[in-house]
């Protein structure tokens, strides 16, 4: 049985301007120890998907329908108290901006220990302290024990993100959700953090959902990839298949516009235009206005096709 | 970031806030043109007849009369005018002074900032009443003096708010970009940064108008405010207070109720304004 199975999830926002279907009927699954990458441009609904897993959707949004089956239980049906026991415990989240993820007025040690003690009422302060120091060492924070007394503003961006990852791993979560964890970091630090996440998820046996707009990042870590566009998944399958043989034009576009170090072409490939606003989606395939292969057939939303274990939504792929 | 139309429609979504706005508008109309609504001008001595004094509320005098035969209902209308005039005038002056000082203080920093903020701190450590009393002891009573006194008490809050906003805005790229274009500091402060400070100032102002009105009422109650010939709500309350326990309750209680209603309506408007101006984060 898969660790996490999401079936036809719908998270909608009821705004003044209309209903925004941020997540519009998506399905995916993750096995134990697997890494799934959710990739797409800003506004595609990837972060909302991540937040929906933990029920972190505030008004005017709500999970309208669908199932999130974690460990055999449907998280959508759980109460707030039940979800609180799971958050930071069995499912942990790493947010995008390390500047705002940590409380600026509490030192690192206290924040870590608080996370331990909240979910382990019987643990002693000394135990919590030791566990915290251990995990800081594990995430490669230099001079870990000294850093327990540091405040977030005394650390660099990369170090802060390591602390955030440490906090997420403290209680041995079975699933980690990382929302653009390296977007705010330099490329050199990004490489270290990605490597760290891959190593730790393997060491701890946790599964990982990595949410990002950068398909190159996804290619480094993930076993499976889901490509999202305007609230829906357009391609979903194994990493090797999607990266080396992308079938959906959007996926192809995302890969083609990556700058390549060894390429001699003078211009970068670019996907023309921008993702449509969720309040004014076109009739038919949402990508058709930016797609070089689109024609009249695309005025109807494409049906799901399963090709060699890959799910794809495109008329032009047979 | 929301703009006028959105803000207005949002405001009206809260029923209580709408009630506050309606009540305030009614009171404001009374205050602006009391002659239209009142039975008499209570300050025109030729209209008063002592034989009408201390009448309980009845058909002629809806809220009764005081010891001079003044119709309480009319007196409240005129009193509202003074209260609102003092409240708004002092607030406008405080905003201008405090806002300007705060912008300068925040933008230039250094000793300018230190001096202005230390003056503000010293002033804040004194109770508002005490400062007003000192000023009026030095310069005497009268509506003009009250306005000055309340202005001096209140400018600090606007200064601090403006300063806080400037400190964060001046480091932003759009302000740096203006500086890089060669704009003078003065232009940058008033053309670029100031428009970004108006929202928090409006929010504070709506609350502090109420405070200004209460401060004036308190001073008048203590007998230090407006002269007896131009009573405000505060002095009306004080006036009636002396005879309260003799059984002539209406002379004090009605002005008191109206004052309370005024303050509550202003607070409702202020609360709602604060809520709708708060930038809500969209994920």
């Amino acid at each position, binding site marked *: 049985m898969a660790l996490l199975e999401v079936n036809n999830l719908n998270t909608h926002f009821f705004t003044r301007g209309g209903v925004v279907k941020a997540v519009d009927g998506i399905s995916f699954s993750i096995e134990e120890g697997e890494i799934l990458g959710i990739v797409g*441009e*800003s*506004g595609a609904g990837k972060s909302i998907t991540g937040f929906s897993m933990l029920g972190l959707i505030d008004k005017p949004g709500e999970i309208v329908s669908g199932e999130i089956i974690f460990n055999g239980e449907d998280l959508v049906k759980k109460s707030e108290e039940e979800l609180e026991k799971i958050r930071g415990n069995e499912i942990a989240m790493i947010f995008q901006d390390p500047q705002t993820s940590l409380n600026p007025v509490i030192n690192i040690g206290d924040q870590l220990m608080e996370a331990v003690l909240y979910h382990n009422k019987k643990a002693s302060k000394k135990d919590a302290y030791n566990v915290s120091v251990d995990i800081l060492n594990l995430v*490669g924070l230099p001079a870990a024990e000294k850093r327990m007394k540091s405040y977030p503003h005394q650390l*660099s*961006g*990369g*170090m802060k993100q390591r602390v955030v990852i440490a906090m997420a791993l403290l209680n041995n979560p079975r699933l980690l959700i990382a929302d653009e964890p390296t977007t705010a970091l*330099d*490329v*050199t*630090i*990004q*490489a*270290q953090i*990605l*490597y760290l996440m*891959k190593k730790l998820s393997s060491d701890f046996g946790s599964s990982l959902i990595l949410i990002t*707009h*950068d*398909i*190159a*990042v996804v*290619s*480094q*870590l993930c076993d499976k990839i889901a490509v999202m566009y305007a609230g829906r998944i357009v391609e979903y399958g194994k990493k090797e298949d999607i*990266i080396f043989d992308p079938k959906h034009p959007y996926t192809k*576009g*995302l890969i083609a*516009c*990556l*700058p*390549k*170090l060894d*390429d001699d072409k*003078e*211009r*970068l*490939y*670019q*996907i*023309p235009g*921008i993702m449509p606003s969720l309040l004014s989606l076109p009739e038919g395939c949402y990508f058709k206005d930016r797609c070089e292969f689109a024609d009249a057939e695309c005025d109807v939303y494409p049906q799901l096709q399963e090709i060699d274990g890959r799910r794809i939504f495109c008329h032009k792929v047979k | *970031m929301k*703009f006028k139309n959105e803000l207005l429609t949002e405001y009206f979504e809260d029923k209580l806030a709408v009630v506050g706005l309606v009540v305030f508008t009614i009171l404001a109309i009374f205050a602006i043109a009391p002659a239209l609504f009142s039975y008499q001008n209570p300050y025109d001595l030729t209209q008063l007849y002592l034989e009408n004094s201390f009448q309980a509320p009845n058909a002629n005098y809806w809220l009764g009369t005081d010891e001079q035969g003044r119709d309480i209902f009319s007196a409240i209308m005129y009193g509202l005018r003074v209260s609102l005039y003092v409240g708004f005038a002092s607030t406008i002056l405080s905003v201008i002074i405090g806002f300007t000082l705060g912008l300068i203080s925040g933008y230039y920093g250094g000793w300018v900032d230190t001096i202005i903020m230390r003056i503000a701190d010293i002033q804040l450590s004194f109770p508002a009443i005490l400062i007003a009393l000192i000023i009026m002891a030095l310069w005497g009573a009268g509506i003009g003096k009250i306005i000055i006194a309340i202005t001096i008490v209140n400018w600090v809050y606007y200064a601090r708010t403006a300063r806080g906003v400037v400190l964060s805005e001046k480091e*932003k*790229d*759009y302000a*740096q*970009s*203006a*500086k*890089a*274009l*060669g*704009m*003078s500091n003065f232009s940058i402060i008033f053309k*670029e940064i100031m*428009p*970004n400070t108006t929202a928090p100032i409006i929010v504070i102002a709506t609350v502090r108008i109420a405070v200004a009105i209460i401060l004036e009422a308190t001073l008048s109650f203590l007998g230090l405010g407006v002269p007896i010939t131009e009573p405000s709500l505060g002095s009306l309350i004080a006036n009636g207070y002396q005879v309260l326990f003799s059984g002539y309750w209406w002379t004090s209680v009605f002005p008191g109720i109206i004052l309370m209603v005024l303050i509550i309506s202003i607070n409702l408007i202020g609360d709602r304004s604060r809520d709708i101006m708060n930038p809500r984060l969209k994920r």
Partner: protein
Amino acid sequence: MSQSEVKLLEVRDVEKIFSVKVGTFEKKDLHALNKVNFDVFKGKTLSLVGESGCGKTTVGKVILGLYQATKGSVLFQGKDIAQLSPVQRGSLQKDVQMIFQDPYSSLNPRKKIKTILEQPLKIHTKMNKKERLETMLSLCDDVGIDHTYLERYPHQFSGGQRQRIAIARAMILKPELILADEPISALDVSIQAQILNLMMDLKEKYKMTMLFITHDISVVKHLSDYVAVMYLGEIVEYASKAELFKSPQHPYTKMLFSTVPDIHTPLMTDSVLKTGEIQSPIDLPVGCFFANRCPYKDEVCEKEHPLLTDLGDNHMARCPKIGQF
């Protein structure tokens, strides 16, 4: 370098020291720039690459005038502007414009796009209203924004659109030199491609001279003529674009290349974990600044601060051990 290339900007031995508070009473010197030297040639693009904290943004701000250099000179159009504020530079200032990094704070949220674009014209030119409007409209076409955008406010646009507006603003005075400080770092990768292509087109059309500042070496290939790599306030390698991408010499440059995620190569292993972080520019080391992260360091590296070595063909690197690894 060919003799026909004209130097538009000469940065000579520029130092910038900030005084920062460490602890309650102590103040220390933060050496943001340590004798930076480079030239920008007319009509060419120099990319300045380095991690956050290496001083690349600081040098940009010194050139722009937002900071004044502590020491050294910046020669532009024959004048040394290193110590001059924008107001003091007078009309010279209209020839140096910057595209800022953060599309969300570089446009005044309270102003219409029209007002934002018109402002430089009002300050530095004598155009009348009609001429200003024409200039703005033609620039909108150049950067790919619709004319209707002029009546809107910044918050109504996406990050990519805002950067187009920021580029339009930087170009509207037709400056001699454009500084671009991480102009694409805050954008999605797919939009980065659009903006990079736009900048290349504009460079071609207007023969722009540009200083392009970034932490991501993979994006400089398409835009640059020359590349300089910066570390802790000094240049550690400099070469033409082709030369640097073909054979980077300095260990730091090689590290920058190795950390770029590439879909064809799997994540590096232990060597990635050991790349470490740039240290703080307070209390700089005596020897080579990069020594503590360098896989090839020895005792000499930690004692002597290396000078730039000329490797021929206008390729320079600050490392005594070039060719030995």
